[in-house]
């Protein structure tokens, strides 16, 4: 009997061992809890953490900053800026209360009805409510309390130079991928590679914790073009005015640096504003200068004469009987437009653009040699430029050339070419017979020597150049290609257009030339499609555009005038 007990019966009734056992049991249960927690937190923790990560970690794609497109002087032609787009899950948003919906509509700056329409119009589980907002405006939506809306951060492409570069620089689609122009052809380099970021999200999908980069985005590389924004704008404006003046359908102009092969300007009309892309017309998107083929017409004549000179068949002063401007070849007849004299020298054949003259010279040449000669200038070969749809042009097969085909090829028919290919050919002549590879990228070093090709001997080139300088002088077909202060040279072209295999009364006026004639720096090629008002001749329609471009660009490049005399003073007088 224990000494503390007062009533033995009661001590028996309330035994101490039961109390101890209950406490002991409870503490044992607590110990089990601790062991279980230790198992979860010390042994099974990796599995549990993986399960957790699978539930709230997401890899979020981080878009790479798209590279800029710059002109040769660093002017921005295409740039990207961060923007935010707002998406919604219509199925969830429809369950919101009316107040929440109108609050969202207010924040988006639209009426509740319009918000309703947008939710109807989009996909069942995903639709964009607004795209490309400034990031500041989208910020309140990043922490929207209800489930169903979210913000995607993107980059928006902006083209500061607008329509002047529209076809060349091109476009990106709404997801930032290049679809036109250089944006498309250089996409892989410009786009870079998007990165991946591991983030922790709450159950509503909002990012609550930025964690580690899985893969850093590799930003796209900037592209520095050979183009000069100033020259491009000059060319574009001159083209635009000419097309308007002559009520033409379209036009194109290209400016090439004779010494480097760099393309300095590449302008097209009509054009479009690449920053506003609703209702795009395909005819505005086309880069006509490189994609459109046409029969060049008389512009080809200096090339033919060059071959005849090179082979020693004629000399510049060799007289050619032009037979009153009509030459019968088989049952076809070739005519001159302005036949005035009985005989012309080879130089005058070029100056007056005599079809009969060049046809007679051509008939004295080996057709295959002629074919190879044209081929050497790049006709029928795709220019190696990173642009979509660069056209190669077509030539007749060399083995079965009939005399009439040889005769028409002499003045640029029966052959198709782009304006760019013509400009390239003239670059070779202007550069004393050495053709340089063309490029759209700025050349910081001269082109590699093994890519230069001599096509004409220097002597022949100089003889042809002398002839072409006559074209812009009084008595030539393109006196309006003359420029104050600079000697210019070139050749007009006026080609009938082919429609459904027949020549129709529609013309394509062109002028390809270079300046200054004494030491050529620029080749400028101009093409005006279907001029309707007054005159359609290359000398009247395209040559003034050439003069406009050359007259503005050469002084701006600091090229010294090479034509002495009063006209120099006139050119130097400040314009009023």
């Amino acid at each position: 009997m224990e000494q503390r007990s007062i009533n033995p019966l009661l001590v028996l009734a309330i035994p101490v061992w039961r109390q101890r056992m209950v406490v002991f049991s409870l503490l044992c249960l607590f110990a089990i809890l601790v062991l279980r927690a230790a198992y979860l937190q010390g042994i099974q923790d990796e599995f549990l953490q993986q399960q957790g990560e699978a539930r709230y970690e997401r890899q979020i794609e981080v878009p790479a900053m798209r590279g800029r497109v710059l002109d040769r002087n660093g002017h921005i032609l295409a740039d990207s800026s961060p923007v935010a787009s707002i998406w919604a899950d219509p199925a969830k948003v429809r369950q919101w209360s009316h107040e929440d919906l109108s609050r969202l509509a207010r924040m988006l700056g639209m009426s509740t009805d319009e918000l309703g329409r947008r939710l109807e119009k989009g996909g069942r589980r995903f639709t964009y409510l607004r795209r490309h907002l400034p990031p500041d405006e989208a910020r309140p939506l990043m922490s929207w309390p209800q489930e169903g809306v979210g913000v995607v951060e993107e980059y928006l492409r902006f083209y500061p130079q607008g329509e002047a570069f529209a076809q060349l620089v091109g476009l990106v689609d709404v997801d930032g991928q290049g679809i036109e122009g250089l944006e498309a052809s250089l996409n892989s380099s410009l786009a870079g590679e998007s990165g991946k970021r591991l983030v922790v999200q709450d159950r509503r999908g909002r990012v609550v914790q930025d964690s580690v980069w899985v893969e850093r985005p590799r930003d796209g590389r900037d592209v520095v073009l050979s183009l000069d924004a100033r020259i491009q704008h000059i060319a574009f404006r001159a083209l635009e005015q000419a097309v308007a003046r002559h009520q033409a359908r379209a036009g194109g102009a290209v400016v090439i640096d004779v010494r480097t092969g760099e393309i300095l300007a590449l302008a097209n009309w009509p054009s479009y504003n690449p920053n506003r892309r609703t209702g795009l017309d395909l005819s505005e998107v086309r880069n006509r200068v490189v994609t459109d083929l046409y029969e060049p017409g008389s512009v080809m004549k200096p090339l033919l004469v060059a071959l005849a000179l090179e082979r020693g068949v004629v000399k510049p002063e060799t007289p050619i009987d032009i037979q009153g401007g009509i030459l019968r070849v088989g049952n076809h007849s070739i005519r001159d437009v302005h036949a005035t004299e009985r005989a012309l020298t080879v130089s005058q054949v070029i100056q007056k653009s005599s079809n009969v003259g060049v046809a007679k010279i051509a008939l004295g040449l080996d057709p295959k040699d002629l074919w190879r000669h044209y081929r050497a200038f790049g006709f029928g070969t795709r220019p190696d430029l990173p642009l979509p749809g660069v056209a190669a042009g077509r030539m007749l097969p060399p083995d079965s050339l009939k005399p009439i085909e040889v005769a028409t090829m002499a003045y640029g028919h029966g052959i198709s070419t782009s304006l760019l290919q013509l400009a390239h050919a003239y670059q070779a002549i202007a550069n004393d017979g050495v053709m340089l590879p063309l490029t759209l990228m700025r050349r910081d070093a001269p082109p590699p020597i093994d890519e230069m090709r001599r096509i004409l001997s220097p002597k022949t080139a100089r003889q042809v150049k002398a002839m072409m300088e006559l074209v812009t002088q009084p008595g030539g077909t393109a006196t309006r290609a003359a420029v104050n202060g600079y000697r210019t040279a070139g050749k007009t072209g006026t080609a009938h257009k082919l429609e459904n295999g027949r020549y129709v009364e529609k013309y394509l006026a062109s002028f390809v030339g270079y300046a200054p004639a004494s030491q050529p720096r620029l080749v400028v090629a101009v093409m005006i499609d279907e001029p309707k008002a007054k005159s359609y001749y290359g000398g009247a329609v395209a040559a003034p555009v050439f003069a406009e471009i050359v007259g503005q660009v050469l002084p701006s490049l600091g090229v010294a005038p090479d034509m002495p005399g009063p006209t120099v003073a006139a050119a130097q007088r400040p314009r009023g």
Partner: protein
Amino acid sequence: MVETLMRRWFGRRGDRLPPSAPHHVERGPVARFGEFDLPLFWAVTALTLMGLVMVYSASIALADESPATGGRANYFLIRQAVFVLLGAGVAWMTFQVPMRVWQSLTPWLFLLGVVLLILVLLPGIGKVVNGSRRWIPLGPINFQPSEFMKLFVSFYAADYTVRKLRFMASFWRGFLPLAFVVVLVGVLLLLQPDFGAFAVISAIAFGVLFLGGLKLRIFFALILLAGAAFAVLILSSEYRSQRLFAFLDPWADPLGKGYQLTHSLIAFGRGKWFGVGLGGSVEKLLYLPEAHTDFLFAVVGEELGLVGVCAVVALFAVVIWRTFTIGRGLVCVEQYFSGLAVFGIGLWIGVQTFINMGVNVGLLPTKGLTLPFMSYGGSSIIANLAAMAVVLRADWELRCLRRGIQV
């Protein structure tokens, strides 16, 4: 035979009076304020304040998000702080009430509890949350009768045992009347349904009876009976059996029945030894439902790690140890009602803590039980603090008695 074995294991020879307090008491005519069980007081205070911090941490995302809170992140913190202050006030008042008054009030309190449990079932009065009708809305707060019923049952079981001390060997006169009452209350609770409260109240009632010396044979019978009744309850309801077995393999259906438990387990796994840091929980970001109430312990595990878990468990162990020590002291000086009521309260806190934590760590099927002192909930915190005040009052009376002062 079993009893002799138990005696041998748990009752050492030469057992002395258990010490009432680890620190010595000065002699004097009247016990002064502060002369109560300080380890118990500080453990409860620590748990309550820690609960306040964890409720805030666990509820920020929910409060920020929910239209019911007006988007105020500190909504639950402020309410819980008000509840704690109210609870402290109620506890102070409770401390003033002598144990004999509680004893005389016991039948009425118990009746009041039963009436409230009936009231809460009436559709016009009781409020349904998550499919259970457990609350009576009183203006801005919801009153949960079952929380106070746990205290009343502690009193009732103690009073009953004192009255029936002579019949502790009798099944018919000692056990059956209380069993009948427990079944009555149990039916009311299961109608809500609140299986967790039923488990706690059964544990209190039969635990007090066990401590009061009810014949062991009857207890074995009871365990068999309870096991059978439990099996019937579980098997009678598809909902209950599914919830019961879901906890055994929550990964089998992690998006359905296992959703809450898998997220609770993930929270512990993420916490590791030292936790992700206070406020760093991801699970509380709307992944883990009831993070601030029933699954607060999981947030403790995630943010404070095993260290925090051990600290919380240790504090609860202190509460249990001190409560039972006080109860034992009271029984030794023949304060049977006080002693048994204190045992009841100790069983309540111990069992409820174990069930809540067991649910959180996936040892027990999911039950809607709060973690005492810590979980968000006004009725729960007020009832818990009031119960601790009863324990401290009983201890205070014990100290007075030891000095020969009759309270």
